[in-house]
Each structure stands twice: as structure tokens, then as C-alpha cells.
């Protein structure tokens, strides 16, 4: 029997999970919005960030919240290398080849991690992991609350950057019309490099925070890639507000379905949402309808 208390708990943890999903999805939506490339290896970079956060704690005793400041620059650098090493060459190729490249990258990183770190589950056991905040009848674990807060801050910061800075205007210009932006004298290469740098860099914030609430293993990223797709498409590709809304919806739906049905059925719910969203509002849940 699902009581009100259980329902309230499901809502609270659903929203907290949703905020974490948003933290993963926001980088993906930025990269797609600007470059029109779907990065199937997005989750694998999250996996790298989680390992980096774990080793910062295990080897140097750095708290995950502080590790963000080390892992984020690292991930940004990886983003730049990824652009110059691989994605730049893939942009000229047909869609199917772009897909194959990022899928190959995802397989490659997963299995390199498997060779290097073995398949063991690792976790940062923090003292504060057992503490929680009471919200009405429901409880929210402290690390989850921190991750949710970080997610909201990050999305707000990215939104401000895109709205207010010249750099943001250039990114939005490229997202709206690649050719138009080039004609206005915007260098595509630099914008793409920065988009990937920031898009992958956001995972540097997510990874360490997530490593204290979720086991790290080589396959952890794949789980998030699929959910991030759902969120990004439901929210409208390249739309931050939509990504946040989509993420909260997915988190809520999953956790409420989990309260009623088995975990497997709850896991199918985001994909059902995706299909409904794609058929019903292919341009995204909150996109403005463009007059033609």
C-alpha cells in the first residue's frame, strides 16, 4: 500500500535525482545545441570524472566538494583534446559516421576503464552520507542535497553566460544558424572547441559529487547517457530550461513508478516518456512554437 509518506518520499528523492540528471544532461544539450552532434560517449566522461573524484579522495583525501575544482579543469582539458583529436574530423563526416565515432569512443573508454580499474564497485564513504535533511515527512540525504544544489547553481550560471556575455551570444548564434554565424565573422572552430570544453567540463562538477552517492564502475556512464538523451530530447535539444524540466520529470516519474511497481518497470518509464515527448512535442516540451 502506498501511503502519503511513501509518496512524499518518492517525490523528494525523485526531484533530487532529477536535479542530478539535469547536471549530467546540461552538458549534452549544450554540445548538441551548438554542434548538432550527439555524443554517445557523454556518460563515459562522467565515469572518468567519477573515477577522478574517487581517486582524489582515496589517494589524497580530498573532499568531493573540493575535488570539483581539480576535476573540472581536467575534464575541460579532455573536452578540448576530444575536439581537436576526434570530433573536429568527425564533423565533416555523415551523421551515421559521427554516431559510429562517438559510439566507438564510448566502447573504447568503457573497456579501457575496465582494463585499468577492473570491474570493482568503488564508493567514497563520507561521514555526512548518513546525515539527512527532513522535508515534511520525507528525508533527503545530504550528499544528494549538495548535488541538487550544485545542479541548480550550474544551470543558472550557464544560462547567465549564454545570455549576457559576447561568448554566449556567439554560441547561440552558431546554435541558431551555422552559416549565418560564419557570415557574421564568428570562427566556428573556436566556438565548437569551447562548447565541447564546457559541455564535458560540467561533468567535472557532477562526477565527484556523484561518486559519494553512487558506486563507480566502468559501466556507470552508460546508465546516464541513455537517461540524458531522454532528458535532452524531451526538453528540446539545446534548451537549458527544458533540460531542467525534463530531468525533474524523468526523476519524478521514475521514483513514483518505483514506489508502485518493481524497479525494472520504473526503469522503463523514462523511455516511455521519451516516446511520448518525441511524438507529441518533437521540438521540446517548453520550446516556443516558431511561426513559419
Amino acid at each position, binding site marked *: 500500500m502506498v501511503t502519503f509518506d511513501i509518496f512524499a518520499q518518492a517525490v523528494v528523492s525523485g526531484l533530487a535525482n532529477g536535479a542530478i540528471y539535469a547536471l549530467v544532461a546540461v552538458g549534452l544539450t549544450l554540445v548538441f545545441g551548438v554542434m548538432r552532434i*550527439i555524443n554517445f560517449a557523454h556518460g563515459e566522461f562522467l565515469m572518468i570524472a567519477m573515477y577522478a573524484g574517487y581517486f582524489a579522495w582515496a589517494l589524497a583525501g580530498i573532499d568531493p566538494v573540493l575535488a570539483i575544482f581539480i576535476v573540472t579543469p581536467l575534464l575541460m582539458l579532455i573536452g578540448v583534446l576530444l575536439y581537436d583529436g576526434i570530433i573536429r574530423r568527425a564533423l565533416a563526416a555523415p551523421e551515421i559516421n*559521427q554516431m559510429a565515432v562517438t*559510439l*566507438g569512443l564510448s566502447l*573504447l573508454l568503457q573497456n579501457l576503464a575496465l582494463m585499468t580499474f577492473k570491474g570493482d564497485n568503488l564508493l567514497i564513504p563520507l561521514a555526512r552520507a548518513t546525515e539527512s535533511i527532513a522535508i515534511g515527512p520525507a528525508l533527503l540525504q545530504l550528499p544528494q542535497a549538495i548535488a541538487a544544489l550544485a545542479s541548480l547553481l550550474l544551470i543558472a550560471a550557464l544560462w547567465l553566460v549564454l545570455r549576457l556575455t559576447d561568448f554566449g551570444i556567439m554560441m547561440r548564434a552558431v546554435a541558431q544558424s551555422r552559416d549565418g554565424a560564419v557570415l557574421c565573422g564568428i570562427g566556428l572552430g573556436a566556438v565548437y572547441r569551447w562548447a565541447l570544453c564546457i559541455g564535458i567540463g560540467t561533468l567535472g562538477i557532477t562526477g565527484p559529487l556523484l561518486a559519494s552517492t553512487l558506486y563507480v564502475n566502468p559501466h556507470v556512464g552508460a546508465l546516464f547517457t541513455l537517461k540524458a538523451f531522454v532528458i535532452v530530447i524531451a526538453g528540446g535539444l539545446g534548451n537549458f530550461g527544458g533540460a531542467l524540466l525534463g530531468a525533474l520529470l524523468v526523476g519524478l516519474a521514475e521514483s513514483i513508478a518505483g514506489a508502485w511497481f518493481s524497479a525494472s518497470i520504473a526503469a*522503463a518509464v523514462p*523511455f516511455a516518456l521519451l516516446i511520448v515527448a*518525441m511524438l507529441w512535442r518533437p521540438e521540446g516540451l517548453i520550446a516556443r512554437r516558431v511561426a513559419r
Partner: protein
Amino acid sequence: MIRFPLIPVLLVVAGFAAATQDRYLMDVFVLTCLYGTMAVAWNLAAGFTGLLSLGHSLFIGIGAYTVAYGVTAHGLSPWVMLPLAVLIAVVCALAIGVLCFRYGLKGYYFGIATLAFSEIAFFLVSAAVWLGRSDGMMLPAGGDPWISLQFRAKWPYGLMILVVLLATLIAGWALLRAKTGYYWRSIRDNEEAAEALGVPIFGFKLFSFALSAGIVAVCGAFYACYVAFVDPRSVLGVELSIQLLVFSIIGGMGLLWGPLLGAAILIPASELLRIWIGASFYGVNIVLYASLLIGLALFLPQGLGALRWRRRVS
């Protein structure tokens, strides 16, 4: 002009003849043909019609689970369940196709939508008690092997999958050189232009997708009999759908037999690697083939099968 794939056909038949003496070789042959057939069928939709499905494991899973369920729960012969499996897969493909094409999902969007359908099936089967949940189902041995399709020897399996593969290649060749094939390729190259010229794109996309689904369902049914065990991860997982793409990219999507070439390179190669390197380094073979995939997708987009033509042109 699509020529009859005579050389691949002869090579496959020769491969079967060479492998009959050795159980291990026959196993590699069967797996190569099985994945080769699935990849060729996937490529009919993806490479020739432009329908980039990332959810073909759904149809493979339908084939495998229909047979496994009929055999374990009702003791029926796989021969009885096979037409049913193909029927269910085709009906599902038509339903998914109608939904996606009606709402104009293309390219990436079609891929992600099909992926979502197959993931839903994956999780629902993982929760379904009557389908063995995530533990899977074991097919019982016994009875007349030509009825239960549970052979002790490997060669009957090799013969069966050889027939399926040859039938797929011949059907694909016949369709591609007929009007259907030209319509498919016109849809792939420019859907709007094809429609403007009067190609009934909706029907031909549905036909391509459903045909591809039907063929991989046959392969799924074969898989259930051959391995005698099905579980969601092996027949419904995303990894399986992605594998078909990998074989096709490596072999070449512009050729009917390109995906078969991809499978014929990668499957024996990963078997060899497993023998040389051993099971201790589990990820090594995937690392190598992922690197190959990235390199080919970037530098030889036509796949290995196109190498010959390239040299002749330049």
C-alpha cells in the same frame, strides 16, 4: 547497379565446408553467419533506406523469446513458433514505423525513438515472471533433434544459418536491383525530393523496416535454438543493436554484403584475441575493435568493403 554477391556467397559456402570437421571452427562459422545476417538485414533499412535503427535488438529479442517461450512453456517445436515470431516482429515494426514516420522522426530522432522502444521491451521482459525475468530461460534438450532443433553436433546449425544468410543475400540483391531498391535509395538520399517525384515514401519505408525486422527475428529464433538460453541482456540489450551498426560501418554500409564482411572480420578476430590474450584482460578485444571503428568512421567512411573500388577509381 547491384551485382550478385557471387564471391561472398562462394566464400561462405566454402567456409561451411571447411568448418564441418571441427566443432570450434563451426561455432565461429555459425556466429559469423548469425551476426552477419542480422547486420545485412539491419543495413537494408539503415544503409539503403536511411532508417538508422538503434533498436533492432527488440526484433531479435521477439524472435528469441517467442521461440523460447513456446518451447519451455508449451513444449511446442521451434518450427511452429518461428512464423509466429516473425509475425509479431513484423507487426511491432509496422506499429513503430507508422508512429515514427507519421510524426516525421528522421535521422538521430528515429534512432533514439527505436532505442527507446527496445529499452522499454528490455525492462518489461526483465520484470515479466512468465518470461523468466532477468534470469532468462533455458531451452530443454531432448526429443527428435529435427523437431526440437536441439542438436548435439554443430553442423546442422551451420547449415540452417547458411540457408538463412543466403536467402537474405539473394532477397536483398533481388530487391535492390528492382524498383524497390531504387525507391529505397532515393528515400535515403533525399526524402523530400523522392516524395516530390511521386515515390510513396511512407509505404516503402515501412516495407524496408518491417522486412529488416522480420529477418532479424528469424535470426533471434535461431539464436534461441543454438544457444538454448535467452536472457534480456543477450538478446534485447542496446549492445546488440550497436554491434550491428559496428559490423556495418566496418564492412561498409554501401554494399549489400559489407556488414557480412564486418562480421567475418570482427568475430573471428575477437575469438583469436581471446585465445592469445586470455580471459584475464577482458576488455582488450573491445578496445581494439572500438579503435578500428573510430579510425574507419573517420578516415574510410565507406568501410573496408569499398577499398577495391577506391583503388580502381584513383
